[in-house]
């Protein structure tokens, strides 16, 4: 399903190049709920970004459903993210000018006019995450937990085979974090989606089927 092969990622932004990933290889099977753990700077988010086609590796390759990212140009990668990958970020990342429902529909809207079926699915997802009454609210009118639930609905709206979550509970209180995690787990299981989640929180990681641990840019435990 997801295949990461001998990936190295070197950042050359400062004066000294920083090697965030030092030859990482991992495979993730369909339907798995995988958490990636590790201390700050261990390369967790870098790995997630590479899997999510948000960034390109310095060496090695990533593929999703047997399509190697290295063979795709920027537009094709955009389409891949739009149709095959869902994202949930730590900082909610909703468009402030769109309503909750429109935010859920965002990937479909980027594709043009969403189909009736997608629209119905978006409404249903909002119901599922408990925000049926808030469809027309804007992000500024929602709480942090509510925003993250909108983000989860958005990640699932196109029925992507993969959902990537970067510290999805990092900005939420404990109780809300638990609820959001349970929701993510439930929705993923129902739709058979693969979930890859970066987290600091052992409690969050415990929800996963498998935990990959990184340290200094290398996998120290592949679960």
């Amino acid at each position: 399903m997801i295949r990461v092969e001998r990936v190295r990622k070197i950042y050359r932004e400062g004066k000294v190049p920083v090697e965030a990933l030092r030859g990482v290889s991992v495979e993730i099977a369909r339907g798995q709920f995988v958490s990636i753990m590790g201390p700050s700077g261990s390369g967790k988010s870098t790995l997630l970004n590479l899997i999510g086609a948000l960034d390109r590796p310095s060496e090695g390759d990533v593929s999703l459903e047997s399509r190697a990212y290295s063979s795709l140009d920027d537009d094709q990668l955009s389409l891949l993210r739009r149709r095959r990958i869902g994202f949930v970020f730590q900082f909610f990342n909703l468009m402030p000018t769109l309503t909750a429902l429109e935010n859920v529909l965002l990937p479909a809207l980027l594709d043009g006019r969403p189909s009736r079926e997608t629209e119905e699915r978006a409404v249903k997802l909002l119901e599922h995450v408990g925000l049926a009454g808030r469809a027309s609210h804007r992000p500024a009118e929602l709480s942090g937990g509510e925003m993250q639930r909108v983000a989860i609905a958005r990640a699932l709206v196109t029925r992507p085979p993969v959902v990537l979550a970067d510290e999805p509970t990092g900005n939420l209180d404990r109780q809300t974090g638990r609820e959001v995690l349970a929701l993510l787990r439930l929705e993923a299981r129902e739709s058979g989606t693969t979930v890859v989640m970066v987290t600091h929180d052992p409690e969050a990681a415990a929800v996963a089927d498998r935990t990959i641990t990184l340290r200094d840019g290398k996998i120290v435990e592949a679960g």
Partner: protein
Amino acid sequence: MRLLLAISLRRLLAQPLRTSLVAAGIALGVAILCSFNLLRSEIDESFRKGIDAIAGKADLEISAGPTGVAEEALERVRRAPGVAHATPVLDTVANLVGGPAGDSVRVVGIDLLGDDYFFGDLLGDRSHDEAPVEDPLAFLNSTESVLVAEAFARKRGLGVGASFQVATPAGVRPLRVRGLLPMEGVADAYGGDVAVMDLYAMQIAFGREGRFDRVQVALEGEGASVDLRAAALRRALGGDLRVERPASRGERVARMLLGFRTALSFASGLALIVAMFLVYNAVSIAVAERRGEIGLLRALGGTLAQVRRLFVAEAALLGAVGGAAGAGLGVLLARLLAGNVGESVSSLYVRVQVGTIEARPGVLASSAAFGVVSSALAAILPARAAARVAPAEAVRRSPPRPETVRDGRLAVAGGCAFAASAALAPLPMVRDVPVGGLLSSLVLVLGFSLCAPIVLRLSAPALARVAERIAGLPGRLAAQNLARLPGRTAVTVSALGVAAALVISVGSFVVSIKTAVHQWIENSVRADLIVTASSPWLGTTNTPIPSAIADDVRRMPGVAAVDPLRSLHADVSGQRAVLFAHDVVTYERYGDPVYTAGDAETVVRELPRGAIAVSSNLAARRKLGVGDTLTLDTPAGARDFRIVAIFVDYTSDAGMVRFDIGVYRQVFGDSLIDAVDVYLVPGLPAGKVRALRDQILRRHPGHDLRVYTNRDLREISFGIVDQTFRVLGSLQLVALIVAILGVLNTLVAAVIDRTREIGMLRAVGATRRQVRVAVITEATLIGIGSSLIGVPAGLILHFIFTRYVNYQTSGFMFPYTIAWPAIAQATIGVGVVAALAGIYPARRAARLQPTAALRAE
């Protein structure tokens, strides 16, 4: 303070692009201001220096009516009590023949034998080792001898012994250079384009026998004030001679140019306002971006005043950089515009020689200071907003709260501004400056700017629908972003709106003038051919010709009638106006001038009996009506003339007084004319017309004659309108560029603000193209928004200018004409240039890496 300056300086250097954008905007605004001030100073100085250089030690000048002082009066002046020295002067601008069009020389006639008090001994100045003239006697023996300023000789490659030709009323004359004058005294006037002749030789050469232009007087002793002694001299000399200080002449010229100067000052003021919008916008953006920094400063004990000072000082710093660059740019711009402005002033008002524009330190410094002060002023409001940031809120780095712009308050403020604008517009002039109209325009612009956020918010949903239909989701996001920070975006929209308003109001004003002039030529200037010498501008740049030419043309085959015209500027009750004399009967037979009071029949009957008609603008400015009298200086002293009609005329904004030419000749003893209007036999074939033109030129080869057709005249008139407004055109361009810099700055800031949003959009699958489309659409919508403000603002500005400002300064009531092409040009123009300004920020946004964008705080 040093710490604050260090913070500002490093911040400005860290964002070189945006810093230079704002500095460039200020520089352009200051450049306009500086260049117009330089041009104004140059023109003023050219007059002042010219008058000073020739008047020299003279305390007073004696003049008499438009045709000058009769020779007999000189003795009277010399004998008058209190007069120590008196010398006559002839002073005229002569067109050079055979050189580039419009080239001229100031010829000054001085009594070289009789005077050595005022001008020194020019023929053999004992203070010089070498006398400028080898043989003074030979010089005085010839009517062709001249001394020319070294600069004049150098510019035209003339040495001693060389000759050049000038057009005079007596025909084209050769003048021989007998000596060169060093660049001081008389020679230093008028940019050095000066030639000096012996007065009596000049009388013969220029057909001015028996007359002087002025008599210069130096008074005896010190004693009482010059004004008191002038009054005594006035009493002693009687009513036919005018006694005044030399400087009064300059003041009258300055007053005549007031309309032109008002337009320039107003326009440069608007350019600076647009630049102030840019600074306001830039500082607002800086405040929004640096809330964390402000919070930190406040948390560590920075006071409110320190935070305010930080931002005001930063703006002042930008103002200083922009101001300095602008002052330099202003010199270049002034040099670029000098020719154009000189020609406009020469054809419309009075002949000027705009020489090399000097970089006057005073003007440069004041313009640069203006840049600093206006930048600092523009920063005050956003700096106050910065000081209001709560330390805790800023340090927490919570996203900035959405702007709370109170529509109600803005609407009330905008309404007040509109009401004030309406109330100010009709106020009368203060010291000949239409203060009411100018303030009204500025307040109007302010009113529209205050309403900009409301206009944006109200139009956003409709714009969003349209944009979504055209550009999909990116289009819609763009429209929604427009209304998101209405305060910030509105400033950009206002600045661009002001630029659009400028294009529309100036464009419409030009169309109004052309419509009026077209109609006027249609009715009032029906001659088939117009014969003049040297230039088509009667009374300003042409050379008068003898009336015998009119008589000769009258006898040529194909000519049905001729109307000889005399047109000259003269002082009419202390202000300049055009005295215009012609054959009233012939003119009224062919023409159909528009009378606003009185009629053609009265004019034909009364003008040959000594009455006058005045132009409607002169009547409006001096509050004259039919039945009133106007006092004019004549060679026989001041005389009252009865007004029997008021007519529409656009010849001069100084106004016109019309005489029958028979009466004029009798009263003023002047038989010269400036043009011959020729009416042809109806149906004369084109070939015959051409032959007639050739015949006129052939029969008077000694007069540098020009024959224009009616259509030529129309084209030339429109040409001068276009030329005059070309200066304002350069200003529109600058206003537009500054406004565009504003768009660029706003969008670059918006892209930085929304880095995370853009990253998220990219993460969920937006392509680079979609991101680009969103930003460019936003830029285009800013352009459209500014048209929503610019079009009504431009049309109302045009109204204020036509009805009040121009009417008050010139007395011309031009029809209010809406120039649709100007509106189309402005709206399409701002849309397109705004979109172009969006390209760079759009590329920048599209280049953002989704991961980097998501990491951004």
